[in-house]
């Protein structure tokens, strides 16, 4: 790839701080909602949704994935994709025996 720009983007301190606050807020949220029985699978669905949101915040801003070359997003996206394949196909065995 010979088309890289020679400039690099700096994530502003203010954005880092906002992400930090959001992460703390989401942590508080997940702890509070864990104590409430939402019935069925909804507790785990909510907990995982919150965790995923936190992870996305860290990936996109703390890890500046939002501002990086697309290939880096493809790399981590592929890793997550194949992990889901691993879980999904293993589940077709374990839960359908």
């Amino acid at each position, binding site marked *: 790839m010979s088309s*890289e720009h020679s*400039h690099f983007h700096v994530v502003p301190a203010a954005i*880092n701080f906002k*992400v930090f606050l959001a992460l703390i807020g989401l942590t508080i949220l*997940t702890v509070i909602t864990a104590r409430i029985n939402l019935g069925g699978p909804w507790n785990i669905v909510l907990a995982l949704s919150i965790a995923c949101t936190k992870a996305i915040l860290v990936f996109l801003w703390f890890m500046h994935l939002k501002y*990086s070359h697309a290939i880096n997003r493809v*790399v981590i996206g592929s*890793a997550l994709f194949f*992990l889901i394949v691993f879980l999904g196909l293993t589940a077709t065995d374990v839960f359908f025996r």
Partner: protein
Amino acid sequence: MSTINFEKGVIPSHHFSTVSQEYHAGILGIWLFLATEVLMFGGLFVAYAIFRNMYPSVFHDASQLLDMQLGAMNTVILIASSYCMAQAVHYTQKGETHHAFTLILLTILCALFFLGVKYFEYQHKFHEGLLPGMNFTHANATREMGIFFGLYFVMTGLHAIHILVGIGLMAWLLLRFKRNEFSPHYFIPVDGVGLYWHIVDIIWIFLFPLLYLIG
């Protein structure tokens, strides 16, 4: 949003044409490494998912034996450490290396605190007879709870090893800061260690609810 111009200053390694090319190669390399971490820990999460679905009540009961408040505290500590690390990268890029140095020091302190809490937790588990295998002698534990605790120790143990390595890497960074080796034109080791540290944080972001917050 500010930008940094690479071309003023540093010379690239002999096999690269430009500093920018070398920087982007480095970042891609780090993301590829992080992908391997995601898949390695991911395997453990797959095992967890399988067994949690197999023994939902066992996992619920076993999770009660963990201290949720310590887990939550550790989560906050690690998020704070991530924030410090992100800011450290920011200030290095801005050329404020003194500020960055302090932030990395803070990150290390948070990491050490995290490990301290984990040590305290492990000690407690040991006394309760919840360590896997032959040491699984807890009075109220069923044999399947051994699966939960086996996973708990492997997952948090492997994570703790990664924290230790992270501390080592950050100590190395501090040394290099002292030697004035980083600037707005060369900061990739700081960036790289930062990316590693954030992945360690992300892993814990999932470990916490899955291990500590069941039911």
